[in-house]
């Protein structure tokens, strides 16, 4: 006999987003919907050990939660239209006939990432209502105290309610911006997990995998949106390097020094498939698709030397037109140095420098130092590398930069 609590948790993880979406559609309130679904879950925990897990557990939980909604309204004597509609619905449909609607799940995703919420709140609510993670799980993977996370979710629900955010997908005028916010939340969840290199990295890997799962869910809901597939592709390529990007002590290993035989080939293939799905839509590549294409160049190259740097330069140029940023420009410079040598790259970096871009960041002086070293301008190179070492907050990185300067 499996532990019932863990079985219920598993059912919850699979079904909860669709249950909450269905209830939110009926009540118009994501916070209330989530509370009702949680109450139904408590009922399940008390009843299922006796009765066994029902055949269609999602339908069971949804029906129980709907009854709770009606009971709540009855207590407050709010016997309005909504009540009548749901009561009618409950009488008409048996428990097993419930079929969740994809559109409701999509509305749920957009509501959890609504612009009235802060980024932190969007992340927490998305993991909670779309991902089906418990408050404790979210707190653990985000490395914040449970109480803090609990408060964040309560506040998020209250904010949605206070702002009277309708349970709707955005209209065409807002679509692009709102979709980009959803993609941003998912990618932020991914990078939170991906960036971890210390002892907690296995926990954080879970977070990155959760982001990938959310990305795939969204790709299923919006198959005609190339950027959703592009984001999934980008995450798959980056995640394929998990095993190779830190050494046994937890120090990060640069892309150039990673053992490529440890890159996950199956994951790279999934990334390529997602990129093909993005291209198949026929609307070209935008920021995620282009970043994924760059990641694909690395993922499919046997070594730094045989990497198609010319193509990477072109992709960075395209990315820079979509989303101009000094970081993209700096990355383009690195690619240019690999493709056509350090002199051309230095011109790009010097232009960034004279524009005052990335001031206070170690990125620009560390790249500039590398290029100067390659050009044999040793004194200037040393000075740039030491400047960079002084600017980075990461001690390991700082040590690497100082060692490089000393070795010149």
């Amino acid at each position, binding site marked *: 006999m499996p532990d019932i609590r863990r079985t219920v948790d598993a059912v919850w*993880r699979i079904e909860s987003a669709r249950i909450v979406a269905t209830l939110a559609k009926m009540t118009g309130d994501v916070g209330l919907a989530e509370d009702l679904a949680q109450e139904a879950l408590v009922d399940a925990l008390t009843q299922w050990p006796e009765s066994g897990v029902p055949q269609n557990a999602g339908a069971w939980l949804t029906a129980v939660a709907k009854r709770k909604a009606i009971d709540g309204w009855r207590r407050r004597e709010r016997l309005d239209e909504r009540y009548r509609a749901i009561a009618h619905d409950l009488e008409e449909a048996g428990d097993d006939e419930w079929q969740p609607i994809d559109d409701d799940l999509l509305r749920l995703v957009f509501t959890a990432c609504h612009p009235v919420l802060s980024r932190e709140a969007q992340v927490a609510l998305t993991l909670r209502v779309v991902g089906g993670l418990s408050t404790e799980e979210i707190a653990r993977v985000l490395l914040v105290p449970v109480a803090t996370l609990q408060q964040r979710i309560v506040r998020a629900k209250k904010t949605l309610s206070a702002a009277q955010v309708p349970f709707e997908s955005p209209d065409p005028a807002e679509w692009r911006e709102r979709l980009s916010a959803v993609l941003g939340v998912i990618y932020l969840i991914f990078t939170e997990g991906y960036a971890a290199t210390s002892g907690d990295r296995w926990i954080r890997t879970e977070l990155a995998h959760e982001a*990938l799962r959310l990305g795939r869910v969204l790709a*299923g809901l919006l198959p005609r949106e190339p950027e959703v597939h592009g984001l999934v592709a980008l995450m798959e390529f980056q995640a394929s390097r998990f095993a190779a990007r830190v*050494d046994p002590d937890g120090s990060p290993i640069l892309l150039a020094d990673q*053992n490529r035989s440890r890159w996950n080939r199956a994951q790279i293939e*999934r990334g390529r498939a997602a990129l093909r799905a993005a291209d198949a839509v026929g609307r070209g590549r935008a920021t995620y698709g282009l970043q994924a294409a760059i990641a694909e160049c690395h993922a499919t190259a046997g070594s730094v030397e045989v990497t198609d740097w010319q193509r990477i330069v072109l992709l960075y140029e395209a990315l820079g037109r979509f989303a101009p940023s000094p970081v993209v420009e700096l990355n383009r410079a690195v690619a240019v140095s690999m493709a056509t040598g350090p002199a051309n790259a230095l011109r790009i970096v010097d232009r960034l420098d004279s524009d005052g871009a990335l001031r206070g960041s170690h990125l620009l002086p560390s790249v500039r130092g590398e290029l100067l070293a390659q050009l044999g301008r040793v004194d200037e190179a040393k000075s740039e590398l030491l400047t960079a070492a002084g600017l980075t907050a990461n001690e390991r990185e700082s040590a690497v930069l100082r060692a490089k300067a000393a*070795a010149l």
Partner: protein
Amino acid sequence: MKYMLIMRANDEATAAYEETDFEQVLNAMGAYNESMMKAGVLLAGEGLTDAKEGFVVDFSAEKPIVTDGPYGETHELFNGFWIIEASSKEEAAEWAGRAPLGPGSKLEVRRVHDDSDFEEFADNEYVKKEASWREEQAARAQGN
């Protein structure tokens, strides 16, 4: 965590399968696959052709021996697999339990190794090899 759902069928299930309308099988499997895709958990999955087309490579002798057809006296054949991403053993069991399979069929569910399983083997020869390989790379980079 990744889990592999390995489909196995005995003679009874194989006979039942051969009598079932193939379109019906396609629809049932299609719906099952779609539900896992929509949940974002399906990573891979393949069905295998008839075991008669297969062959066995046996390592009992000094030199591996190849024989045509299914494995020896086995009356339970592997027919296909899925790889899914699940947060717990119970979630994997829940998905496995939803597969459209009948009497005589079984799903063996096995967790796929991930990197954390090898963390304690930092002293392993190959892990060390990798470290020295990295040193070489670093030395080469400095020589450039």
